[in-house]
């Protein structure tokens, strides 16, 4: 460096310019990628709707409720209502877990669950979507009186789920999110 003590003005100018250029780049990359990211999200949600409502071939988005949230009604090949796919979210171990689950109102059962977004502990909490045995427990699960997570191996009742060993909080979070979702929506959907 030439001078050992540059003026404050030069320092301000450098940082100001760097900040401005950086801001412009960020706005640019956000503008370019936002539609694509939005589409990825929509596609993931779309795929998940058919996964949590096995047998569904057509979906219909409900009217938004007063809070602006929607559910998806799934219909089978004969156009009979199979159930609803309900997006729900809540606090996990580290960050919000967003998930989608399918519920069959006639049989009062959860028929599928997919985690859409989560930041649970790698190797432990992330088993809520990586451990397929855990995910499969939500394929046929009674919702009355309420879903309950119990220590692994002790699920006996139709509404009980074997929690993941080492990830009890994440397992319970999933169960709580679904129970809360049921509370919010099931009355309205009837």
């Amino acid at each position, binding site marked *: 460096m030439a001078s050992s003590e540059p003026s404050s003005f030069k*320092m301000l100018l*450098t940082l100001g310019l760097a*900040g401005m250029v*950086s801001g412009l780049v960020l706005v640019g990359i956000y503008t370019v990628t936002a539609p694509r990211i939005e589409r*990825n999200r929509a596609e993931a949600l779309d795929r998940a709707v058919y996964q949590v409502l096995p047998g569904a071939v057509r979906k219909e988005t409900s009217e938004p409720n007063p809070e602006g949230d929607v559910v998806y009604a799934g219909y089978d090949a004969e156009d009979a209502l199979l159930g609803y796919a309900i997006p729900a979210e809540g606090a996990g171990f580290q960050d919000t877990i967003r998930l989608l689950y399918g519920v069959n109102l006639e049989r009062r059962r959860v028929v599928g669950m997919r985690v859409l977004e989560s930041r649970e502990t790698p*190797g432990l909490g992330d088993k809520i979507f990586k451990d397929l045995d855990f995910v499969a427990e939500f394929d046929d699960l009674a919702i009355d009186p309420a879903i309950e997570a119990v220590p692994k191996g002790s699920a006996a009742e139709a509404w009980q789920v074997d929690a993941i060993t080492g990830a009890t909080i994440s397992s319970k979070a999933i169960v709580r999110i679904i129970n809360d979702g049921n509370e919010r929506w099931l009355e309205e959907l009837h």
Partner: protein
Amino acid sequence: MAAPPTTVNEDFIRGLWKENPVFVQLLGLCPALAVTNSAINAVAMSAATAFVLCGSSVLVSSMRSIIPKQVRITTFIIVIATFVTVADFTLMALLPDVHKELGAFIALIVANCLILGRQEAFASRNTVGRALADAAGMSTGFGIALLMLGGIREILGSGSLFGVSLFGDSFEPWIIMILPPGGFLTIGLLLVVFARMERRKGGAS
């Protein structure tokens, strides 16, 4: 230590092995341990880090004469953070599954001391060409280290490599290897191997 390298070629080679960022300089251990529970994660993390490191080095090196040295670290961080965010959004748009897998660790590249360290120690004092060679070498070295860690941990911890099952059903995976302690065990053992090799070389000369 050998004489400081002077050619672009040597700038590149140095980062691969002799000054490997993970095994020799012990930099960037957080991502090196956190995301290497599978080989594919290791590759994605290395690629994102390489992009940020090379981009930042070129930019910092080309602006090295106009950045006042009192605010250089701040400027480096702004440059690095910008590249990290670009990488973050690009991954989210193009490879959403990989992004989901790496989660918060992409954003945390900004705190990887390997990147800031190379700006301070090399890019801000050398020409663009040499800075790029150095960044590419360090990135490759980082990638080699992550791939070794990820490969070992995935083979032992899941019985597979790049998701391809290696041993069939008879193999009982060592779950601990894909959990955090497995990362520490693996890097510890690899460091022992590295230190031994170094000492043997040192003793021979």
